[in-house]
């Protein structure tokens, strides 16, 4: 059995408890990345080590329609000439193709904050990765559940 088929035990317990209490699941603990994503990430970072943090991948955990999913990626960074985000990318696990978007940022942006709308073929894991001007790479991995629309043509 692939280790990324089920969420790790701690996350399952949290989710089960939340559902049992009827709480909306607001806290989304950092997720262990699947092998598929780890591979494509290495290509983007050129093998540089990555760490979870600084990146905030804002996407709904449950999506009504996978055709148009609003997302916003924000990176904590002063965006100054000597300390800024150089590149930002989103990768997916189960679409026909791994890449979603890859952006080039400059200090003239003032804030590292990009929004767009993406397509998700099915429920899967996604990762947003930021490459900083000092060479460090930061990630945020999320799990998204995708439901299908009713009554299609």
């Amino acid at each position, binding site marked *: 059995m692939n280790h990324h088929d089920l969420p790790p035990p701690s996350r399952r317990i949290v989710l089960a408890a939340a559902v049992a209490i009827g709480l909306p699941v607001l806290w989304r603990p950092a997720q262990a990345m699947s092998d598929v994503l780890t591979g494509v990430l290495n290509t983007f970072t050129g093998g540089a080590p990555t760490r979870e943090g600084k990146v905030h991948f804002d996407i709904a955990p449950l999506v009504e329609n996978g055709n148009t999913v609003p997302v916003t990626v924000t990176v904590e960074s002063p965006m100054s000439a000597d300390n800024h985000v150089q590149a930002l990318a989103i990768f997916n696990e189960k679409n026909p193709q791994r890449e979603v978007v890859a952006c080039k940022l400059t200090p*003239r942006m003032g804030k590292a904050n990009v929004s767009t709308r*993406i397509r998700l073929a099915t429920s899967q894991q996604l990762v947003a990765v930021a490459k900083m001007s000092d060479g460090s790479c930061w990630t945020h991995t999320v799990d998204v559940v995708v439901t299908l629309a009713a009554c299609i043509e």
Partner: protein
Amino acid sequence: MARTLINAPRTARKGDVMEIRTLIAHPMETGYRAGADGRTLPRDIIRRFACRYNNELVFSADLYPAISANPYLAFQVVADASGTLTFTWEGDNGFAQTESATITVS
């Protein structure tokens, strides 16, 4: 010429971080879908977006089939000088479009 909707402030104070929002009409055909005859519809997407501020590149994005139809891109730009913001979209089948917005910075 595809329809675009762009939100960029016309005036700003120096140092303000402006929110730029862009929307362009485009089907973003993925190249993975089958048509009514069962044959795969060829890919037809916008591949690149770029924002230039007085001719200097501020932000660019490489788009892939996973970007939804009618692509929406929102990002931030610091108002540092009066001039022109230029937005370009390029893609398959020779798709190329440029829009601009003037900004007065005080």
